[in-house]
């Protein structure tokens, strides 16, 4: 049996009942991808998930989503563990509390599959909405004005990306501990992947919705 095209992984933590919205988004995007002829392994990983979050996910498998409890509680270690267990050729992370546009998996997979193994796909827009809409357009590393040195002072990309699963194994997430500032993990990973020679690209017509912009994402 061949590996699925995509492992779509929702990382659940302390979201409580809100995780249901993210689960729904995962299911919708996976369904859209399957309709486009892709094979998708949809998984929720429980990384230090609170009882409220676990309770909200008790019927996840009825929606075709495998639920996996992780030993790791460190956010970076949890993602690394999830990446190690993923069966797909490509891997997409969705943070608990976030929402993808329905086309995300299809469009991001198309970019990565057509752009070579060293591409990391990001949505065209990060849309934050808790304190008023705030749009963030991540840069495409191929933009002529982009200077990677800017990463020394602030992050450019969220780690809710899609890339070949091998990328996550070659450049694992840093284990910064539970006290790390939101976004630090993403920033570390951005720098590490750029240093490793990967190219961060954006996928037109896709959006990732989250409640709050991390300070590191500038």
């Amino acid at each position, binding site marked *: 049996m061949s590996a699925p095209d995509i492992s779509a992984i929702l990382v659940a933590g302390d979201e409580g009942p809100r995780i249901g*919205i993210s689960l*729904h*988004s995962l299911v*919708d995007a996976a369904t859209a991808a399957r309709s486009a002829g892709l094979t998708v392994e949809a998984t929720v990983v429980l990384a230090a998930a609170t009882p409220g979050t676990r309770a909200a996910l008790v019927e996840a498998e009825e929606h075709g989503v495998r639920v996996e409890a992780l030993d790791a509680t460190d956010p970076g270690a949890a993602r690394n563990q999830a990446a190690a267990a993923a069966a797909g050729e490509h891997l997409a992370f969705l943070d608990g509390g976030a*929402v*993808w*546009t*329905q*086309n995300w998996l299809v469009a991001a997979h198309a970019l990565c599959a057509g752009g070579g193994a060293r591409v990391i796909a990001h949505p*065209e*827009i990060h*849309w*934050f*909405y*808790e*304190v*008023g*809409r*705030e*749009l*963030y*357009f*991540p*840069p495409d590393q191929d*933009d002529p*004005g*982009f*200077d990677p*040195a*800017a*990463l*020394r*002072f*602030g992050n*450019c990309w969220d780690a809710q990306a899609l890339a070949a699963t091998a990328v996550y194994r070659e450049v694992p997430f840093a284990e910064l501990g539970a006290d790390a500032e939101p976004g630090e993990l993403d920033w570390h990973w951005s720098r590490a992947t750029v240093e490793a020679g990967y190219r961060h690209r954006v996928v*037109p*017509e*896709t*959006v990732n*919705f989250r409640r709050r912009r991390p300070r590191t994402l*500038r």
Partner: protein
Amino acid sequence: MRQWASRVRPTAGADGPDVEETQGLASSVFERLRWCAHPRFYLAQLDEGERGRLGDEPGVEAVVKHYLEVGAPRGLRVSALFNPDWYADRLAEIGLAVPDGEVPFLHWLRTGWDRRVVPTPLFDPDWYLEHHPVLESHPRWILHHYLTRGCYQPQWVPSPAGRHHGGAADDGAARRQDPLFLPELLHRAVDHDLTRTSWLEEGVRAVLDRRRRLDDPALRTQIDIAADLEPGLHSPLRVELPTVAPPYAHPGTRMAEAATAAHSALGVDQVDTVVLVPHCRMSGAARVAGLFTDAARVAGGPDSVAVVSTDLPVFERPSLFPDDVRVLDLTRHVAGMAQPARRDVLHDLLQALRPARVVLINSLLGWQLVGERGEDVAGFADVGAYLFTWEIDEHGHRYGYPVGPFQQGLPHLSWVLFDSDRMRAELVDRYLMPAAARDRMIFLRNPIADFSVDVGGVLERRRAAGLPVRVLWAGRFDRQKRFDLVVDIARLRPDLEICAWGKPVLEDIDLDPDDLPPNIRLMGVYDGFDQLPLDEVDFLLYTSGWDGIPNVVLEGAQSGLPIVASAVGGVPEVVTPETGYPVAEVDDPAAYVAAIEALLADPAAAAARAAELRRQVHQLFDADDYRSRIAKLLAEGPMS
């Protein structure tokens, strides 16, 4: 003749201030032009020779005049808030165009302004009003508010692309007509034709273009589907926050280039010691920074030391530092950046310089860096610091580097130097420091200045000759130095002739020269204590309310002057009843008068004390000893 020429040509033979006559513009239009003029932006479009002719800070009037005579015909922009291409597009939307040959900016001032045409991508009136509803009552066109106030104050957000600047306030911005966004506008200036556009304007256009992507039907469909799932993503009832679209507006883009430019401006790849100073002006700390730098340079050799000035673009006394030590004005590179951006640029610069040690000598930015990212800095360099004295606020409470910053930085400090044993003892005692911490707190006397003066005997000769009693007071006319006591003393003893040298630096007191007693003479600034007429005065008066070991006291002592001094901070380590006339009741003018009268009552005894003081400071405050101890500290660490 081109149409603009007839409108900007000065009228021959006109005289007087009538702008209508001399500038060829209606007074209301000329007033608008003055509001819009941004001298520093205009200067950036001139070549070096033209800039030189206008001067570094030519002011609005001179720039407007130059623009009308030279800049307008050449297509230069005098206003950072006028973009000719943007204006042409907005005019076209209402079926208008700039007539052939007319200067677009002058057309806007005459015509576009009255039709409320916004001539720049940097300002969106709807966004401005929505985010600042208090401006609904602004009596003029809302762009007028941004032009005359908003662009000079950090709190105003003029566009969906945000504030356009790093958020730092600049008290002089409105006076100079330097919009706060100017550093962003001039970023990568060589890559842009500033007469038409800039890094900032391109960035704002990019944001606006990307925001229009939300109108794309395919994207709209996807957003609508997501909103069906989570209606909250539209943030109903909330005001939108600015959009960010790197590389434009990503602070890291400018910060990275600032750090690289600063490193390049320093002109050296790596140094052993970086000395962080706030600025260099008339202060004892500046002198000590120079002494330490010299000692470190002697120990490590040329190019082993760099001085980085971090807080103010002032370097008035470069002669305090060795000629062959490189000095960097970091403030020039971080202009307009708010914290923590300036801190992070300094951190990046230090990492690039790979020093063995970083030494803080009253640098606020340096203390902030060590307080907030001390673990990072200590990971690649030893961190040393100098502490001189705390400050006292108007309520009598202590603050300053030995209070909060020292506490924050203490875990990361390899050593701290004190020029006053009392200051060191106070900190050791307050923290009940164990031996390992105490050993890192080092008392080291600063060397006396390198001049040889001995006015021993002058007091006795002047008294014997019956000359008026002349008093020397020298220092900063700042709150700390208590010049108010000098005024009181002068009133209590009108027979004293007090010669006061120095100038206000911090400008934290009101000093009206016309309201001083007639027996106080303001002598102006001085360049070196030994340049003062020391053999024409009877004694030195020192009145500071708090201090460490003041240079002026040491310099008076080494010159053989009798000294009457407030017994504050480290002063009693120098001026004792055996060597001078310390005043314990430091706030009481009568106590100073009593000390002065004791001095004058027995000139021979006063001269003897001054001679003993001179002998002591020459013995204890020795330059060679200072250099050798600094060399040992840098080579072997504080436990040596």
